[in-house]
């Protein structure tokens, strides 16, 4: 599993990784939803598309994760599969992402806790020896 939960006494600290920024961001999203629901039981049947822009990879990570929290309140949607592409354009860093999931079914998805927001604590996106890491702390 390319993410781990780190120790933080009040909140949820996550380190996710992948062979590209996009992969690390996809795992970062899966880690977040794996906290809230049994993500392995969430069927990837409804897709939502995202195009996000930011000045930094860290800003882009927060924007991506925060955007994914919105559909649970507006459409009762939770996600379990993510495809992310991050590239540098003339306009700055651009993320194109797709999240797949389905409406929350409490019986099947066994919700647990709720991510309230993505903080700037320990926020980091970096590359080490060909592996991209995305680290963040979510308020739960």
């Amino acid at each position, binding site marked *: 599993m390319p993410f781990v939960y780190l120790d*933080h006494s009040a909140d949820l600290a996550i380190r996710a990784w992948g062979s590209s920024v996009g992969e690390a961001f996809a795992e970062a999203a899966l880690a977040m939803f794996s906290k*809230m*629901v049994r993500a392995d039981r969430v069927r990837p049947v409804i897709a939502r598309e995202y195009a996000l822009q930011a000045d930094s990879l860290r800003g882009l990570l927060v924007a991506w994760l925060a955007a994914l*929290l919105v559909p649970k309140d507006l459409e009762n949607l939770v996600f379990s599969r993510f495809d992310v592409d991050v590239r540098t354009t003339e306009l700055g860093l651009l993320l194109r992402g797709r999240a797949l999931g389905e409406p929350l079914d409490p019986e099947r998805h066994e919700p*647990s806790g709720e991510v*309230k*927001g993505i903080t*700037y604590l320990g926020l980091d996106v970096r590359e080490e020896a060909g592996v991209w890491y995305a680290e963040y702390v979510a*308020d739960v």
Partner: protein
Amino acid sequence: MGGSLSVFDHMERVGDVEWTLAPHDGMLVAGRIYADAASIDQLRREADDPKGWSAVRQLKNVASLPGIVAPALALPDVHPGYGFPIGGVGAFDLDDGVVVVGGVGFDINCGVRLLRTPLRRGDVAPDIDRIAADLYRAVPAGLGSKGALCLSTKEIDRVLREGAPYVVRLGDGIESDLEYTEENGHVDGAEPDAVSALAKQRQFQQVGTLGSGNHYLEVQIVDELLEPKAARAFGLAAAQVVVSIHTGSRALGHQIGQDSLREMASACEKYGIRIPDQEMVCAPARSPEGQRYLAAVACGANCAFANRQAITHLVRTSLARSCSIDPETIQTVYDIGHNHVRIEEHEVDGVARRLLVHRKGATRAFGPGRSDVPPAYRECGHPTLVGGTMGTSSYVMHGTSAGMELAFGSGIHGAGRALSRNQALKRFRSDGILSDLAAKGIRLLAHDKRGIAEEAPGAYKDVDSVVRAAAAAGINVPVARLRPLAVIKG
């Protein structure tokens, strides 16, 4: 070469439960920590681990922000948060100071409301399973839950501007609920235009929902009166049945927090504010960005007051029906927030000043005589509500005159976590906790079955010790200890 100094090397014990963090490395003021020996040991361990999160390092960051007027404070339930430590208090000059998103957090004006009932333990004990099941059904909770109030854009703007009084006017409450809610359930300066459309949309169906995580509803017994005179003023008697509601501003607050972090990060750059860590993003209080945040945070505060008011109505209706009592005999003792920034008047070095007081995981605890304390409570100070864990006591306390001077009239808000959620999941099992609680006569009804272990009583500090430390510091006075009979977790 010796190792670099830990932040803890700048700590000095100055009293039984009082430590000072000497100004160093960019701090503009000192830090002051009220904590017992066990908490201090924990703070030291955190501070000595450079890779971990440290509440003392976070307190140092607070003390480094522009315009802070007096020592940054950590109260006895202190533990690491983001931005401010939880249990952290920081007061800033209105003209030269900053507003800090991490001094309020995502759950704006999260807090506790305590309701008293005319019932005694013997009236509910035989039927507690049915009573708890009725409450569990009556109050929407858990991820994806929807409130009974489904609001339009126009209505949500009224909730944000007016707070709890709007809900009472809709018929969900009684006038005395407002009299005994902090700020009468409505803070000034709320400007719905300062809140994004997205934040409002996320809230449409969430007014009157409990949420999840550490939010709860508890049926409790007044187990012991510790300060009988104040208890009488608060309408509390031994063996009385009371109900605590712990929740906040839900998705609206979460989105305001998220939007504001981004805006404050830009403001920091724009105004050239040097912050010690990215988690401390802030804006000058007088800047358009700072003013906009304050207007938005007031909306979040009003939303939280409205939310606890809507839940009060659900609890009142359910409990009155379950126990065959008049709903209006279920009355609000007090409603108090523990994540906020407020404009308040305090004396600093003998001079009265209007300040921006941030309290993150800390309540107001105004002492005797303040005009903003309800008249019935003015002789002792208003109640503060200290949430325990689902297996341990909660407390009612009140503020003191000394606390007004020492701590800007602030109080502890809970036990404070000792273990991370990760550690708790490794150490505890939900079924074991359920049987431990049952052995203590506590019913637990949880929407979130998997989260029970994360919220295990053993994952928190000992609330009794935390309360003793706050009392020893002279800032809060214990009035009554409450013991849970039934716990409903979000």
